[in-house]
Structures are given as C-alpha cells and as structure tokens.
C-alpha cells in the first residue's frame, strides 16, 4: 500500500512539474492584465528549441536557455500585438498556438528530415527521484510569490492589472510592466516545454504538449491567480494524470481513453464549478489606452 502511495506522490509531482512553469507564467501575465492563451504554443516552441539547441551544441543546459529565449520571443510577439496594436489577446494567443504547431512541424522535417519526432539528444538526467526541473519549479514558485507580494515591482504589476490608469498617473510605466510580464510568461512557458522534452524523454515529438498549456491556465484560475494556489492546483491536475498512468500499468479495467480524458474533465469542473467567486484582476484582457478620459 505504502509503495503505491509513494509511487502516486512521485508521479503526481512529476506530472505537475511541466504545468507549474506555464501556470506561473500565466499568473504573471494576467496579474499585469494580459490574457495569455498562447502558453500551449509557447511550450511547444520551447520544447522544440530545447531539443534543437541541445542537438546542435550537445549541451542540455544551453538547450534550456534556448527554450527560454524562444519562449520569451513568442511572449514578446503576444505582448507587441496586444499592447501596441491593441489586438484581441485571446485571438492573438490562439494564432500563436496555430503558428507554433506549423513552425515546429516545418523545422522538424527540415532539420531531421523525417516527420513525427526528432532523434534523441542530450538531456537532463534525474537527480534522485525527480529531474532538476522539479526543483527549479519549487524555487520559482517561492520566488514568484516573493516578487509579486513582497517587492515594489510586484506591487506595481498588481496595480497595473487592477487599475492601470491609477498606476499610470503615479508614473508607473503600464506598457513596460505588461511587456515584462508577458515576455516572462513566454520564458516560463518555454521552460515548461523544455521540461517535457529534454527534461524527460530526450526528444521532441509532435503533439507532446497535448494541451498542457491550457490545463496550466485552468490551474491558474483554480488557484485564484496566486502563485502558490496555482502550484497547488497543478499538483491536483498532476494527480489526475498520475492516476491515469498508474491505472494503465496496474492494468485497472478502465478504458484508457477515459483516463486520457480525465484531466480535461476535471479542468472543466474546476473552471465551472468549484472555483467559486474568484475574480481575475480587474483590467485582465483589456488593452490600455493612454489618455482616455
């Protein structure tokens, strides 16, 4: 019995890890007032870039940096279009997801010459029961909490997401704050993607992100836009995933498709019912117009 529980716990944490990064990223982005639906696509390009850079340089660490840079680049794209062009943030995020899919497929075929998945590359081997990404995730959760709630920078981020005009009149640069947060969310999503590729299976496979970026968004909502809440919600979804993996290897007689679908169904419940009266930052999703009266 005990061994099953410990396997379950370990599996939960392992499944939750890739979710925590984009969930934190989404939190920063939305706390500053920008909705980032493109987390899933940013994870995909992050996962791919990590493998690509590791392939070219042989170093998974550089691969991680590659993921961060590319993720940040796509974050910049979202920021640029939504802040400067005041485009609809959900639509741009969706466009990024679509573009990420095409781009990774294209480059996959161009560089490795075959569709479907890349070859194996150097990756991060686990330290103890978990790989370094799990430890990184834990650190980042605590750092995020500190930054958002204990520093002036965090105060300004939250102000910009709740009442951007008030912050503007006090000299806080609303656009800059939002740019930083959205690029940060891209970087974090990129790390999340890297944790899926070079953090576990040492290659990139088409469709490997499988909507985890969206589950991370659900975790963020479930966690009421708070870094620690979001992380706990990620653990919850990780649990669902873990149950699925374990049931399969223990040969439980549940149709595998049901288990695959379980995290998604739970997400819907979380977003629709159990969340209660949680509210997003007041200015979430609304482009800021300077000088409106």
């Amino acid at each position, binding site marked *: 019995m005990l061994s099953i529980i410990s396997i379950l716990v370990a599996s939960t944490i392992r499944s939750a890890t890739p979710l925590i990064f984009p969930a934190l990223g989404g939190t920063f982005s939305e706390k500053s007032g920008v909705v980032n639906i493109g987390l899933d696509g940013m994870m995909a390009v992050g996962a791919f870039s990590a493998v690509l850079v590791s392939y070219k340089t042989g170093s998974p660490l550089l691969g991680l940096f590659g993921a961060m840079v590319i993720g940040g680049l796509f974050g910049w794209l979202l920021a640029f279009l939504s802040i400067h062009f005041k485009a609809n943030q959900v639509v741009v995020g969706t466009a990024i997801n679509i573009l990420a899919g095409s781009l990774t497929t294209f480059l996959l075929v161009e560089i490795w010459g075959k569709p479907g998945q890349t070859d194996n590359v150097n990756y991060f081997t686990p330290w103890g029961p978990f790989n370094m990404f799990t430890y990184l995730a834990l650190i980042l959760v605590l750092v995020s909490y500190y930054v958002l709630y204990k520093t002036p920078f965090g105060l*300004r981020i939250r102000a910009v997401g709740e009442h951007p005009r008030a912050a503007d009149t006090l000299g806080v640069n609303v656009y800059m704050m939002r740019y930083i947060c959205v690029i940060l969310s891209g970087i974090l999503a990129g790390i999340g993607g890297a944790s899926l590729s070079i953090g576990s299976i040492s290659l990139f496979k088409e469709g490997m992100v499988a909507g985890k970026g969206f589950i991370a968004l659900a975790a963020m909502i479930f966690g009421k836009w708070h870094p620690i809440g979001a992380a706990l919600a990620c653990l919850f979804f990780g649990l669902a995933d873990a149950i699925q993996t374990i049931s399969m290897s223990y040969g439980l007689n549940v149709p595998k498709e049901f288990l695959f679908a379980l995290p998604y169904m739970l997400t819907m419940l979380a977003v629709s019912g159990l969340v209660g009266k949680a509210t997003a930052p007041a200015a979430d999703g609304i482009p800021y117009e300077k000088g409106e009266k």
Partner: protein
Amino acid sequence: MKGIGKSFPGVRANDDINLTVNHGEIHVLLGENGAGKSTLMNILYGLYNPDEGEILVKGKNVKISNPNVAISLGIGMVHQHFMLVPPFTVAENIVLGSEPQKGLALDMDKAISDVEELSKKYELRVDPRAKVQDISVGMQQRVEILKTLYRGAEILILDEPTAVLTPQEIEELGIILKSLVSQGKSIILITHKLKEVMIMSDKVTIIRRGKVIDTLETSGTSIEELAEKMVGRKVSLTVDKGEAEVGEPILQVKGLKTLDNRGLEAVKGVDFEVRSGEILGIAGVDGNGQSELVQTITGLRKTTAGDISIKGKSITNLSPKDVTSSGVGYIPEDRHKRGLILDFPLSENTILGIHRSKAFKKGFGLDYRKIREYSRKLIKEFDVRTPNERIYAKSLSGGNQQKLIIARELDRDPSLLIASQPTRGLDVGAIEFVHHRLIEQRSKGKAVLLVSLELDEIMALSDRIAVMYDGKIVGIVDAKDATELELGIMMAGGRRPEEH
C-alpha cells in the same frame, strides 16, 4: 503655461492657452464639459505632451514628458474619477510608484508610519491599513490628496473634486484647501460648478472650446458673468416650469428592498409615488442606493421584498421587456453601457426593445426598409445631428447619442419616464434640450422620475424632491420650499430641521 496647443484627431482641444498661477493662490479653471480644461491639466501633469507652447515652473522652462517629471517638479493631481486600486490598502495606494524599500523588499511598516505622519501633519484623517474598496468616498478623496503630498507636491491640481460630495463635505473640502494654502501650497481647481467657484477661489480662468476667454479676480465677478463667459451667450439659469397639474399616481413603490452586486442591502425599504403631471427628483450622493433602486424598477435587478406598480398593475420583478411594455421609459445613467449599442447603426438602435413588433416584420425576418424609415422619422423629430441613419452610434457626439435615446424612449409614449443622470457629460445646449423634453413630458400629464447627482438640476426641475441616504428615503419635500442647506443635511443622513 504659455501658448499651449494640443490636438486630437478631429478636435483642437487646446488652442494657444495662457495660464498663470501664483504662489498661495486658489485658481479655478472654469468651463463646460469638453471645453479642454482637463486636457490642459493632463499636459501640466505630464499625461499628455503639448503640440505647441511652453511651461515654466518657478520661472524655469521645463518639459514635462511624464507624471514622474511633474511629480519631481512638485506638481500633484487628484483626478475626477479616483485613481485608487480598490483591493489595495490606503498605504499601498499612497506609496505606489515611490515605494520605501528595505533591500529588495517593500518596506510596508515604513510606508504605514510615513502615511500616519503625513496624515497628522495636514489633518487629513485616513486609516493606512484599510482597503480602499471599504472606505468612504470622503476618505478616498483625502487619500488622493495625501498621495500628492507624499510626493512633496507644492502645486495641487484637483479635477472636479466636488462631484461626489455632499454640500457639507464640500464645505469641509474648502476648509482643507484653505489650510493647504496657508501651508504654502498653490491650488488649481477644475470645475463647471459656478457656485463653488465663487466660494472657493481667488482667481478664475474661463475656457471655452479650447481657448482662454478671460482671467478674472473672483471677488470682482458674479455667477451670471461667469456663466455667460463659459457658454458664450446669456444663459438662463432657471427653468421655466409653470404650475404642476398633478393627477393620479402612476408609479407606486412600497417597502422595496434590494441587494447590490456584493450581496449587501442597497435599498432598505423605500416607499414613494410619482403622480401624473409631476416630476419627482431623487437627490443624494452617489452610492446611496439610487442606481439599484432604478435598476429594480426597470426590471434589471430583482427585489428581495416590496412592491412596484404602474397605474395599479404590479410590475415587481418583471423582465425589462414586460416593464417597458407596461409603459415605462428609461434614460439610463450610462448611455454607452445601457442605452445604446455603439457598434450598431442608428437605425438598429432605434428599434432596440421593440424589434419584435409586427410593424417591422417581413416574412421570416425583419423589414429593414421600414426600420430605416422609422429611424429617419425619429432623427428628424428629435433633431439628432447626423448625416444619415446608417452611421454607427459611436460616431455621434454625447449630446446626440442622448437625443437618440430620448427619441426612442419617448416615441413609445411611456406613462412613466425614468431619467437617470440624463445630462451627465453633456454641453449646455444638450442639457437644455433634455430639460425641455422632461418638462414637456410633465406638461403632457406623464410622470417623470428624475435621479441626479446634480442638486441644482434636481431643484430646478422637480416638483417634489426625495432624498436618498444609505438606501432609505429620508424625506420628501416640496421643491418650492426646499433649501440647499436642508437637502444637504438630508443627503448626509441628517433629519429635516423640523423633525426632532
């Protein structure tokens, strides 16, 4: 400020404006809505950059490119709509952008003690730990003033500071301002309220259509002169009403109770009636339940207790559609939110609410030819200035948008017309139009329920005045007998002088 010019697409907001404010002076910028006074002050505070002109602070030429520069020059601004982050505390709001730090962290303890010190020095009572969404409007304004003082403001700009205050609170504000002046501050007040100009200021600069008309000593001028300069022609400050010919009660409200969006009681048991041929004005400071009361009558909000009837027929908790068809017309307080669909053409806006009627049906769908004809008729009758009925509602000016809403509501010949803040944001010409139509309804024997935050408007138009405070009606008086003092006391929760 010398020769300031600023243009936006379609409008020259400021044109060659000169303004001089001396040390220790309370200087008012007077003008109608849209005259350009806020734009000028936003330039001074660095929120806008001027297209032409220069600014000199203490004799030195400066370029104020953003609020940080303004703040460093000792300029502070209190905006008309408060710039406070509701879930943050008072202290957090005050220090935002200039936070005291301890290493990497925000030093909250120092922030709180700094605020307490400042509060004591200037006698502006606030609670640093309270969340802004929980404190009173008066305290919120004090927080706004402290925000500027925290950053060492010497020149304070206050934009329409009295819009949300009771007459007593306005007096208190006057005292605060005089105290600040005595401590060496200079103050610029933006307002369109003539009475306050006379009471509170030393000098007045009148702005009309982006240009300075004149600068005068307050002691040497009068309300009439200011009004004329503000508008450009002689303005009648009273409304010609005639005697009321009152008949049967049209609207009857008994024991009404309603909750607000947070689940708290906003209307706590209200009784009143409006009879045909009269205008009942509901006075009160914003946030005392008037909005919720009106929403309940129009069917946009559910009651928790009580009864509403039109001509004896109950309309309690009916849908907006059924309330409208029972003979109620509504000019909403937020015309962009409730009144119009800005992205629809005018034609489609005029049929909103009656779009299901047989008159506009053709086969399975709508007869757009008839709809356009109908809208053209309304536009002509109510003098809505527009090239045609096909343009989108968002292209109309505020005054014309309001005219369209009034046209739509009045054409359905309601027995009860509810007008909620009908003249907010309108220029004098549009205000006159709206007042004229309200009086017209009254003369036709209809009932009019007027809800307004402008006490002058209520006093000029109403036959009877009801004052709302904290969700209850604390008194109903005849407009002929009512004084501003009396109403002010009631608006602040006091009783009428006759009663205990």
